[in-house]
């Protein structure tokens, strides 16, 4: 296989149309006879529905269908099925859907919403995790015991939706050693909104007894299956197709608006369009969750971590959703980076009466890396060791054990730290400033993973020498479907990547796929595509061998030809061979499938985990320099550097683009993207005016070095490269600001008011009284 030919800076084939405004995203789809839908949402965070009467709304001119809780009998969730489509009797968050309407115009649909008569008895609301964990707290889900459990193993109870633990070694003994310092750190982070430019949007129709859902999603198969479950129909009755997606970042890794449109399409017999308003996007975003973290370490004065324990509380909002799964990730993120002997960690998803949280690029990893790296700096400071020297001493290396006892292969982080030194030294330091600002710099490390899992691919060989790649992969903007996948297929078949036609996702056409996210597109879909292309290759070589009268093993595929190795110009074109193959044996195609191999953890270490060990670790080293204005508290990022473990860079330029974009999203998280929840239980930031995303003037060009060669089971040695760039940005900025100010940074984002509070010692240090002092007291179920 002409492996080297897979590497190139292939341009995106979708760029020209996107630049001319021709690309038709889901929001741009208008079908003949299409109705417009709108959703009635609760305006209290907690309450009982006394009356919901749609009869007056149904008489509004233009209204064609109204659906309510009775139309959607099922419940969905991850781990536990706790989430209905509409509030049933009980309202658990401000913004929870109560009814949906389809009408000829959007104005008519909205008029109908206003005409729905709703009577709600407000109930006390649990708005914070501290309230949720109070001894006599009201339960957000009083009937939590009755929910169907979809994955066994997680401890649950009261307002704790899910609890995952990892325990290895003897932590008590480590903490009791006479030669250790005990360092304890507490951290708090808020939510982050993805602000995908295309809101969640769907056009649904009901044709021949099946639903056709055209939607802006990262997960067509999850939409298919979850919609079917909510509606109480067989999943085979749901077809999902996906136009180009205008930004995901994890927001579209879960179901949102699709079932409403599906129900309304069936009820009205017409296509139904439903698009969230920006305000709905802001108020009911499946945010990156807010979290409270306490981490303690026992460290020798020489700088060895002999014991570590942590409690992580993640707010799942009113329903468990993604946070149930994410409890797993704490072991791999907060428990990442450093070799650990004795460790215990508990990660708890906590119910509150707030809008449900979801997945966001490096979910869980971003704040746990912030916590771990700030904690690491606090350790280094306590024992009087250089923070970089401490990291070098402790980072995971070849045969070291991770938190769950998985054995890491190869020295990756150490050489990456060296690489960062080189990168830093190569840059001329900016001239010393005399502007009165406080300067600081920091280097942080991070551990992430590739969310492997099932993918399927089919490659159809066309007689004209092109191939069609059929998968359930979605182009969300990262370019994987436009660049790495055609590159992998093309290099296998010796054809130009432009000759690989990429079929848009359609659950009727391609096999099951977990979805686009978790850095898995190039890895999982890529591996399935590679395997499918290899089958086509084998078939073509056999036919070509007959045509050329040579042994298949002597043949190579390159430059659109199949020829004898070492004899350029011999043989036939791929098109000639494909045509011949079609004539003699019928059209040629190949199929491929992939899923994670399942790296073992140490038996008995983990409980309530969805992933015990990580198949493909991904490491990152970030370096950041900041200037802090002591008058205003404003933090300016002066320089930013990234050394990223990519396994192998198939398209270096595309990866650079992902790193620049991911770092900038992280800068927003670190510095000014803030979500707060008012006393009324409603998210306070309802638009671009109040939620501040990075602008062109806020950012710096990121200096980038791609670290290749770390082991990976990904195709051609690849790892996911698009998700991880955001991983340690919060950490690097926070450590740099702490170094600049000499203050203990315990919270993000570092908005000017928060930095001023730090500088002026206006705010007491963060404590987390809802985390019990004794680690084991935080557990529902002893580990």
């Amino acid at each position, binding site marked *: 296989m002409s492996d080297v030919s897979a590497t190139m800076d292939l341009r995106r084939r979708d760029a020209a149309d996107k630049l001319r405004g021709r690309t*038709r995203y889901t929001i741009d789809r208008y079908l003949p006879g299409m109705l417009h839908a709108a959703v009635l949402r609760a305006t209290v965070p907690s309450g009982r529905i006394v009356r919901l009467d749609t009869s007056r709304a149904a008489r509004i001119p233009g209204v064609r269908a109204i659906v309510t809780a009775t139309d959607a009998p099922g419940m969905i969730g991850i781990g536990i099925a706790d989430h209905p489509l509409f509030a049933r009797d009980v309202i658990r968050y401000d913004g929870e859907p109560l009814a949906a309407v389809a009408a000829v115009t959007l104005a008519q649909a909205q008029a109908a919403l206003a005409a729905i008569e709703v009577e709600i008895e407000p109930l006390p609301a649990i708005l914070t995790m501290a309230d949720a964990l109070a001894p006599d707290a009201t339960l957000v889900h009083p009937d939590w015991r009755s929910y169907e459990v979809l994955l066994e193993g997680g401890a649950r109870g009261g307002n704790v939706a899910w609890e995952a633990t990892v325990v290895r070694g003897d932590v008590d003994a480590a903490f009791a050693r006479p030669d250790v310092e005990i360092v304890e750190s507490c951290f708090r982070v808020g939510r982050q909104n993805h602000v995908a*430019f295309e809101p969640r949007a769907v056009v649904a129709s009901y044709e021949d007894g099946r639903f056709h859902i055209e939607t802006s999603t990262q997960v067509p198969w999850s939409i298919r299956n979850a919609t079917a479950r909510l509606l109480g129909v067989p999943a085979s009755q749901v077809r999902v197709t996906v136009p180009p997606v205008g*930004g995901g970042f994890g927001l579209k890794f879960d179901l949102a608006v699709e079932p409403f449109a599906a129900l309304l399409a069936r009820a009205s017999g017409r296509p139904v369009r439903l698009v969230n308003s920006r305000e709905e996007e802001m108020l009911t975003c499946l945010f990156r969750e807010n979290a409270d973290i306490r981490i303690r370490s026992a460290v020798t004065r020489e700088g060895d971590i002999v014991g570590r324990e942590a409690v992580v509380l993640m707010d799942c909002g009113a329903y468990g959703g993604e946070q149930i799964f994410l409890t797993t990730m704490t072991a791999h993120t907060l428990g990442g980076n450093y070799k650990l002997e004795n460790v215990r960690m508990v990660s708890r998803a906590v119910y509150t009466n707030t809008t449900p949280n979801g997945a966001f690029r490096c979910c869980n990893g971003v704040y746990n890396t912030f916590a771990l790296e700030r904690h690491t700096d606090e350790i280094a400071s306590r024992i009087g060791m250089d923070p970089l020297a401490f990291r070098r001493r402790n980072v995971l290396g070849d045969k070291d054990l991770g938190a769950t006892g998985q054995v890491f292969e190869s020295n990756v982080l150490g050489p990456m730290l060296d690489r960062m030194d080189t990168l830093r030294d190569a840059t001329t330091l900016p001239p010393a400033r005399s502007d009165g600002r406080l300067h600081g710099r920091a280097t942080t490390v991070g551990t992430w993973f590739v969310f492997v899992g099932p993918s399927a691919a089919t490659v159809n060989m066309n007689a004209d020498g092109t191939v069609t790649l059929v998968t359930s992969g979605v182009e969300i903007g990262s370019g994987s479907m436009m660049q790495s996948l055609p590159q992998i297929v093309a290099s296998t078949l010796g054809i130009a990547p432009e000759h690989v036609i990429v079929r848009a996702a359609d659950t009727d056409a391609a096999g099951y796929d977990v979805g686009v996210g978790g850095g898995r597109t190039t890895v999982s879909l890529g591996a399935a595509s590679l395997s499918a292309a290899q089958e086509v290759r084998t078939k073509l070589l056999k036919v070509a061998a007959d045509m050329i009268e040579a042994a298949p093993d002597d043949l190579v595929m390159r430059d659109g030809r199949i020829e004898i190795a070492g004899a350029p110009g011999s043989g036939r074109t791929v098109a000639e061979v494909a045509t011949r193959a079609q004539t003699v044996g019928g059209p040629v195609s190949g199929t491929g499938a992939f899923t994670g191999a399942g790296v073992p953890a140490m038996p008995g270490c983990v409980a309530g985990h969805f992933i015990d060990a990580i198949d493909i670790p991904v490491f990152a080293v970030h370096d950041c320099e900041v200037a802090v204005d002591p008058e205003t508290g404003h933090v300016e990022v002066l320089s930013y550097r990234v050394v990223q473990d990519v396994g192998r860079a198939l398209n270096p330029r595309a990866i650079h683009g992902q790193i*620049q*974009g991911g770092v*900038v999203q992280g800068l927003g998280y670190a510095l000014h993207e803030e979500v707060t929840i008012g006393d009324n239980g409603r998210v306070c930031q309802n638009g671009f005016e109040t939620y501040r995303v990075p602008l062109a003037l806020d950012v710096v060009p990121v200096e980038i070095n791609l670290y290749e060669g770390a082991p990976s089971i990904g195709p051609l040695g690849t790892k996911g490269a698009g998700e991880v760039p955001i991983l340690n940005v919060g950490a690097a900025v926070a450590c740099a600001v702490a170094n600049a100010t000499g203050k203990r940074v315990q919270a993000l984002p570092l908005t000017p008011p928060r930095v001023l509070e730090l500088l002026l010692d206006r705010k007491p240090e963060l404590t987390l009284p809802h985390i019990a002092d004794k680690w084991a007291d935080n557990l529902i179920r002893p580990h």
Partner: protein
Amino acid sequence: MGFSLTVNGDRLSCAADPATPLVDILREEMHLTGAKPVCREGFCGACMVLVDGEPTPSCLVPAALADGREIHTVEGLAPHGALNRIQTALEASDAVQCGMCFPGMVVSLTHLLTARPDASRDDIRAALTGNICRCTGYERIVEATLLALATR
């Protein structure tokens, strides 16, 4: 009642409520879906069009106020489906990711190239204040603009 709009050189009459935001007329009546209604508050710039040559967020313009003025949308920036100078540079620079902000970016930068042919890197960054991008981190867009300015 009714008013007329001149969009990409075509004169079209419109019977919609005159207060309808221009972006909705463009998208829903004229099927020009290039302009994206992302924030509808004039912050993001994804719905930018040229009104008498000036970049204008079409979400903030009541359609009837555009009567008698020349409107150019992203679809009408280059003849016969060609790419103009900034589109060519953005394509060559692999700047595009999800692409939702680019119709507005392209409109603003097309104007910048003619209005400020000597723009520096910092001038370009400042000029992009009204065009938000959530994917790219801006750097490629700034680089592509410098490239377009240099290849005049």
